[in-house]
């Protein structure tokens, strides 16, 4: 039986309401606000069991307004003097703050708080997922494959910093806007990658991370001052990746690589939206790594089959990316393309220069690439030896199964 409520309504409403209430009461009251909203949502859960309101969103807005009034009383009773509140108790035009564009504005401010450079990257991620996306500790820890206790610590460190550094619930000044926006895009990119590249047992949460990243990016693009080449390019990139989401994991939970994906499963509407976004991206002066990564993803999407892939174009893009944003993983990716192009001499010279320690938990990719190189050049024995090494270093079960399958193919 259908519950008649759109997917993720509660989660999205939660993020909205947190943002609006924070706009009214200020960041110092964040915890109070979160508790108050938790109550509201539990209440909805119980009340809606029998009858769901005709307009669920309006219900939430109404009860958030009531909450605001409760909180105003409470905050006052606690003798907390907040300029905005004592000035405004009578003059706050409460209804105005719950208009759609005001809600979006508040959410965007919250995103800038979450991605504030005073917070460490892992704190930004946890804080964003909790406060903007309404994930619980349990969900965040499942999403980031991190212990609940650790997430709890990150959140409390983040909250402490927000208080101590007196981070304000405002958009950054013009002078620092582009740097701060870059920080926000990086967090969105990270959230997406957590969902897209990790291959945990629980796929549902992966998809939700990807969906959240898309949603947040879309929100940014609604605001004129936040539109830029990089914010459009990132959105394009995420759409291109998301279009392949369905095809990269099989029904029995195993990874399907690009070569073997059923290309008819790729989600065309998302590719279209991604293309539109890229067309907008190039009308702005700024360029970013997202432009290049999106261009690489687009090349893959363009190919009718794996054999049709334009590896030369992809190689050129990787080279540019490497110049702009040198990374060890980028170098490795370039060599993987060179293997496709059968430039084995080049690969033989370059592969030994890759530093495994700089690849962190992705070191297994290096060994798997070595294995592939040897296999394609006819050295089965070495291929197996390197694949065993890759299997020793990989710590994800799905990836391991994928490598095991490859190893079997070598035999």
């Amino acid at each position, binding site marked *: *039986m259908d*519950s*008649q*409520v759109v997917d*993720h*309504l*509660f*989660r999205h*409403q*939660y993020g909205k309401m947190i943002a609006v209430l924070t706009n009214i009461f200020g960041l110092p009251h964040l915890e109070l606000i979160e508790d108050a909203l*938790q*109550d509201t*949502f*539990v209440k*909805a*859960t*119980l*009340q*809606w*069991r*029998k009858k*769901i309101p005709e307009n669920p969103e309006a219900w939430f807005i109404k009860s958030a307004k009531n909450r605001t009034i409760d909180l105003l009383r409470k905050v006052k009773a606690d003798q907390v003097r907040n300029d905005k509140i004592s000035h405004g108790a009578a003059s706050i035009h409460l209804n105005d703050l719950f208009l759609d564009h005001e809600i979006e504005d508040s959410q965007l401010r919250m995103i800038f708080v979450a991605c504030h450079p005073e917070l460490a990257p892992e704190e930004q991620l946890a804080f964003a997922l909790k406060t903007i996306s*309404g*994930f*619980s*500790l*349990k*969900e965040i820890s499942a999403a980031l494959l991190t212990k609940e206790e650790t997430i709890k610590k990150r959140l409390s460190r983040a909250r402490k910093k927000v208080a101590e550094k007196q981070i304000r619930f405002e958009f950054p000044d013009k002078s620092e806007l582009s740097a701060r926006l870059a920080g926000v895009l990086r967090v969105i990119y990270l959230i997406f990658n957590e969902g897209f590249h990790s291959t945990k047992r629980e796929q549902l949460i992966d998809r*939700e991370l990807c969906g959240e990243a898309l949603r947040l990016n879309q929100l940014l693009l609604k605001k004129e001052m936040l539109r830029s080449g990089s914010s459009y390019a990132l959105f394009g990139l995420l759409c291109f990746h998301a279009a392949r989401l369905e095809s990269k994991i099989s029904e029995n939970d195993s990874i399907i690589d690009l070569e073997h994906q059923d290309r008819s499963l790729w989600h065309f509407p998302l590719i279209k939206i991604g293309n539109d976004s890229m067309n907008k991206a190039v009308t702005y002066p700024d360029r970013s790594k997202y432009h290049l990564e999106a261009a690489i993803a687009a090349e893959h999407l363009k190919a009718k089959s794996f054999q049709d892939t334009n590896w030369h174009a992809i190689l050129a893009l990787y080279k540019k990316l490497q110049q702009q944003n040198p990374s060890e993983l980028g170098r490795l990716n370039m060599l993987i393309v060179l293997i496709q192009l059968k430039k084995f001499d080049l690969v033989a010279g370059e592969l030994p220069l890759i530093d495994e320690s700089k690849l962190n938990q992705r070191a297994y990719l290096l060994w798997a690439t070595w294995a592939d190189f040897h296999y394609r050049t006819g050295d089965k024995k070495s291929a197996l030896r390197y694949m065993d090494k890759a299997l020793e270093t990989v710590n994800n079960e799905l990836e391991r199964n994928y490598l095991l399958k490859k190893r079997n193919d070598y035999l």
Partner: protein
Amino acid sequence: MLIFIGETYADMGLSPEELQERMGKWFAWSNKMEAAGIVKGGEALHDPVRRISGPDRVVTDGPFAESKELVGGYFIVSAKDMDEAEEIAQDFPDYDLGSTVEIREIMVFDQ
């Protein structure tokens, strides 16, 4: 009467997403019973508890140590016997959260 006993959603720290999922399951269950015409009534209860006990009428406010055994609500359903009520209670949505359903027959007095 089906009495629902367990930890409260608030104490379990369920996320908005999880709450929505719970709501959907309860909605489905209660609609199913409504459709079958077996629900005679029922309410959800607020979390705060105040207990008054003993000859001295000692008053204590929750939460109590045994917060996992809090009555959260009830349904009154019509069933011909315990077994039928048990059958109805199969669809209770929160067993996976460690919650319990207690079935009690409401006493009907002779006129």
